[in-house]
């Protein structure tokens, strides 16, 4: 059972209160009339199914009823972070690659799995700085 942190309610809630709503950060083509059929088809129908880090939308259905984003590891099910709509993730695929690299080098255990499914913060300073720069 996940214990998910809702960024709007500002506390951890049971998974039962939430609904997954699919891939996040899908950008609508700027000008639908001018874009190719392929680009439009991608936008409408094609979704990523990665092995590893996935950014998803979730809905706090029984609660504040707001959409928010979760960065989740599709293999370990670890929730790496949750953030509000309109914000950018601080944990991405580079983060995973770096973790695996350090694991291969024997510096640390594989991807860390938080106890009880609580989020583990693993953002690098560089990633944080870039997001802060983007928001400023």
């Amino acid at each position, binding site marked *: 059972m996940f214990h998910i942190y809702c960024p*709007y*309610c*500002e*506390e951890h*809630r*049971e998974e*039962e*209160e939430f609904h997954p709503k699919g891939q996040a950060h899908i950008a609508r083509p700027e000008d639908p009339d001018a874009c190719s059929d392929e680009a439009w088809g991608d936008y409408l129908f094609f979704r990523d199914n990665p092995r590893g880090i996935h950014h998803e939308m979730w809905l706090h259905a*029984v*609660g*504040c*009823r*707001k959409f928010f984003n979760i960065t989740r590891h599709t293999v370990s099910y670890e929730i790496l972070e949750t953030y509000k709509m309109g914000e950018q993730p601080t944990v991405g695929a580079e983060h995973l690659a770096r973790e695996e690299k350090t694991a291969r080098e024997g510096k640390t255990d594989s991807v860390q799995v938080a106890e009880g499914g609580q989020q583990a913060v693993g953002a690098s300073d560089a990633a944080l700085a870039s997001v802060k720069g983007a928001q400023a």
Partner: protein
Amino acid sequence: MSNTVHVYDARADHATVTAESPLAYSFQRSGMPAPGEASGEESRAVIGERAFLGHLILRGGAIVLDEALREVLGIGLPGRPNSLTVDADGQRSVQWLSPDEWLLIVPGDETFGLETRLRAHLGGSHVAIVDVSAGQTLIELSGEAAHEVLMKSTVYDVDPHAFTVGKGVTTLFAKTSVILRRPDESRWELIVRRSFADYVYRWLLDAGAEYGIGVVREDRHESQ
């Protein structure tokens, strides 16, 4: 485009049909055991319905709503998520429901006047006020085992130390959803949908049986 909003008094005095609370049917059908009646021991949990209160949903920006509410009602919006403000005599409350949504509960006969005054005060601000009084009801749960009845029913942490006075959340309760809140030390309040009121009532009777749960029915026009 006109900005006219039509506001209707849902409980006009000239109504000839007697209002029935959402639980009137349940009281008839499932009965109203007196506290401790079934077990023969002292009751450790008591439920009661506070029917015919005015429930208003306020949506919009926190700053304009807070200002209008302080002006009109004398209490402000709760500043934090999942919290509740209650006025001095405990009759009126505002609860955070989501970042742009609050639930205002006042005595039933004040609803229409309050809504009208709020609208007048808010003018053309981008807000919505919806009277949902008819759609939900408030069930009060008290007694020393009240939190134990809740623990059997909801996934939320209702330990009195974790769920402190002044907190209010929307959460799951026995497969349905409720707004659960704690206005003071001794009482818990459950705001349930009218259509689920009977289900929740019967659930509470069942869950509270081991604590000798009973029902205390308030007079219709008594506000507390």
